[in-house]
């Protein structure tokens, strides 16, 4: 393989889909080099073969639609359960916070009333 053939390797890959990928010197070499011409033809055949796969479909084994729909449904249910749990958790935490606040408030009231009771004899 000549140095030019080696240098052209990448350009030949690109030239398979884009005829303008070869510069003037490269085109001149390809016009004279049978190996590079053969390489270019092979690259083009690979590309054509790949493009021909576009119209080919691979049939899945039966049951895929059912699997997909079950997967979607289960994920939907999981999400619903999760949001329900999140809602319950929020309600629980809210309730706990309210109870704590109420207990605190009650404590303050009791303390305040005790203080008032203690002060009464002194005032009399």
């Amino acid at each position, binding site marked *: 393989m000549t140095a030019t053939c080696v240098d052209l390797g990448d350009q030949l890959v690109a030239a398979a889909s884009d005829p303008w990928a070869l510069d003037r010197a490269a085109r001149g070499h390809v016009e004279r080099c049978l190996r590079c011409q053969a390489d270019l033809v092979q690259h083009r055949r690979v590309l054509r073969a790949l493009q021909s796969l576009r119209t080919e479909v691979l*049939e899945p084994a039966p049951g895929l639609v059912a699997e997909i729909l079950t997967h979607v449904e289960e994920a939907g249910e999981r999400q619903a359960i999760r949001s329900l749990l999140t809602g319950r958790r929020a309600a629980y935490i809210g309730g706990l916070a309210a109870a704590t606040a109420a207990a605190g408030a009650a404590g303050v009231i009791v303390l305040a009333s005790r203080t008032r009771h203690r002060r009464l004899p002194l005032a009399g």
Partner: protein
Amino acid sequence: MAALVARAQEGDDRAFEELVTATHVETYTLARRLTGNDDDARDVVQDAYLRAYRSIGRFRGEARFSTWLYRITANCASTHMGRGRRHRHDELRDDLVVVDTRPDLDPGAHADAADLRDRVSAALEELPPKLRAVVVLRDIYDMSHDAIAAELGISTSAAKVRLHRARRRLKERMFPARGDGQGIEPGDEGVE
């Protein structure tokens, strides 16, 4: 298809089910080509439709629905293969049904084309997943370099480099070099 999509966007689950029925074979085909095996392809397809179901409200119709679904599938396949759970490179199964939807060709050309398709399919299976994904999306599904890069989470230049490598490997696989590797120019034949 557009009417089904519109109904699915309004929350009609029956319409979404019909969309799945209408598109799942093509989606599976892409997933199968990207992953290289049936089990992974089925997982990818399920994830792709779940993602489509959740985000169908954001589908604006600038591209075809199938193109939108292909991009989701490519993204799911990339994620799935990235997990590195099951990187198998199984040969194409004998019982895999291949359907050619092209118009009839003359028998000779058809046989040649079929042979070439078989060889390129086999060569694709041999490629590392990262190279295979790029060449499948570009050369079979005609996705732009930018779209491929976006869905695979790589740069555009990395996508181009991978495409180049993939095409080169496919060619080497399909047309193994036979000679001594010397360039042949007219008049060079037989010259030591």
